[in-house]
């Protein structure tokens, strides 16, 4: 396993060191003393495992394709934004806009996520073991968004085809967000996903898959209709 000590080095230097190790065929890289630097492990395009031994700032794992990134602390805004494939796991909490514009792959947060979780996501899977802030799933287009705890206000506002699951309470549904029933096959898939991505102890502390609420788009905002004027007036 290769190690990079980030102490006293800029994000640019740390990322250059990561790329150099990848070019030298390292597949398992640890970044020590990350000190919540922004832009760590941005645009990693190889199937390597990168362990951030602490917290990361904005955009950690952003614009990636194929890497497995593990953040042992918390992460700032825009975690794994626009990722094409790969897995990003955060042991702590995630800041606003986690998994923003995610195209595919998995983003897993063991703690809580702040506002606009999964905003404009276009695919992939987002799992938050704790709670999430307001406007999670705003304008989300495809993929699956799972919150095991409570969801904040305006949840799943103005969505297209993303499917959301919430294990706890939803403070309020966003415009055009509607509750929907889970079928048995869906419950099975949800359980499989939670079991696969969360540590057993964390999974056990969360609600059973059958008890999750499912939220999808009511499709009233997909095409303008004067009969739905009030919905459009209130659309964020």
């Amino acid at each position, binding site marked *: 396993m290769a190690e990079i000590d980030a102490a006293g080095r800029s*994000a*640019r230097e740390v*990322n250059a060191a990561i790329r150099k190790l990848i070019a030298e065929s390292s597949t398992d890289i640890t970044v020590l003393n990350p000190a919540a630097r*922004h*832009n760590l492990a*941005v*645009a990693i*395009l190889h199937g390597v495992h990168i362990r951030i031994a602490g917290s990361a*700032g*904005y*955009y950690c794992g*952003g*614009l*990636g*394709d194929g890497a497995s990134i593990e953040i042992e602390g918390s992460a700032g*805004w*825009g975690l794994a*934004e*626009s990722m*094409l494939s790969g897995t990003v796991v955060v042991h702590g909490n995630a800041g*606003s*806009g986690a998994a*923003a*514009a995610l*195209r595919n792959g998995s983003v897993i947060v063991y703690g809580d996520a702040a506002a*606009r979780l999964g*905003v*404009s996501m*276009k*695919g992939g899977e987002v799992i938050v073991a704790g709670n999430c802030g307001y406007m999670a799933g705003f*304008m989300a*287009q*495809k993929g699956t968004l799972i919150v095991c705890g409570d969801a904040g206000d305006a949840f799943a506002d103005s969505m*297209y*085809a993303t499917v959301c699951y919430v294990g706890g309470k939803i403070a309020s549904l966003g415009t055009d967000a509607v509750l929907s029933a889970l079928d048995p096959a869906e419950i099975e898939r949800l359980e499989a996903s939670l079991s696969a991505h969360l540590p057993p102890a964390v999974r056990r502390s969360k609600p059973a898959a059958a008890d999750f609420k499912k939220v999808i788009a009511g499709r009233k*905002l*997909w*095409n*303008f209709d*004067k009969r739905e*004027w009030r919905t459009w007036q209130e659309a964020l």
Partner: protein
Amino acid sequence: MAELQTSGIFAPGVIEDIQAKAESGLYSIRGFGTLRERRWATFDDLTFLPCSLTRIPLEGYREKCSTKTVLGTRFAKKPIELDIPIMITGMSWGALSFNAKVALAKGAASAGSSNTTGDGGMLRAERDNSRTLIYEVLPSRYGINIHHMREADAIELTIGQGAKPGTGGLLLGSKVSDRIAEQRDLPIGVDQRSPARHPDFLGPDDMIIKVEELREATDWQVPIFIKMGASRVYDDVKLAAKAGADVIVVDGMEGGTGASPAIFQEHTGIPTLAAVCEARLALEDIGLYGEVQLIIAGGIRDGVDAAKAMALGADACYIGTASLIALNCNKPIYEDDYRAIGAAPHACHHCHTGRCPVGITTQDPELMNRLDIDQGAERVRNLLRAMTLEIQMLARSCGKSNIHHLEPEDLAALTLEASAVCGIPLAGTRKVFGK
């Protein structure tokens, strides 16, 4: 019988607009850009002051006058080098047809210029036919792909556009075909309303980190542009420069659009002439004029507009609508099809319908095939070349051996407003009005 009089307040167009809203319950949506009669100061309110005795002209058709344009010299390892200062602005595949996007790429490449992706990601054929491709990162992030970004020659972080600053794009369901839906990860046929804000940053301080991310993602090789619709230009340009932009693009209110609420096109933002003046002043005041390059966009029609923008401080100009007109937009052909959508040649702003009679702003294969890619590319190339020749002629007449040497002193204002906006004397006086 006395002639019947219409109201100046409730003019026929106003009556039609009210009755259309009464029918639909929706604001009016259309394409093209502002249709208002321009009563504000424009480039037409300026005139060049060619050489006579105080300055010596270059031979108009013979002596060399460089048009080489270099953008992104501030931080990027590989600034872009263009043969000419007229570039094709970002217009999405979705708003435009495949044939239009590829024709623009080929035309720009053959003229030694650049083209830009747009709010729908990159087309492979677009990259393959471009010489210099600018990849737009927009709030919607439709089709965003790191591999495409790394193939680009510059990245443009778009905050807004001139036709509709402060709001996101629109693509009505008639244009969200199966291919466009797949490219954008949307359901087929939705009235797609793009976000106005980026999903992962909000203000100018966060944007500093975003710009650094884009540089990391592209190994600090290519220039980072920041594009904005012209509203509070003086302050916004300073913030964009502080965020680390190599190049700032300011898009004035005369800018075009494939679709947006008509009220935005008519009543938001400031004119392109005012925008270039504010942008230059902002860069001068923070000591970055010349170090951060400035691109001006919004209703640039010909080499005259471009030359005036450059004299006032722009390093280059984007064209959008003019390049579509080169592709036959509003040309009197297929006239029955114009009439079928309630338009007419020279009076068509129906890009939003997806029924473009000349195959430019449509996803209908039959309509799109009316635009031949190679013929279209040739017309775009010819337009870019002709505009460049116009700029050179004006520059030579002002004694410049390089078009980038055009300066405010080469201009006089024809109206009080233009004098006040541009800070240059009114013709016939030695006064700058408002000073």
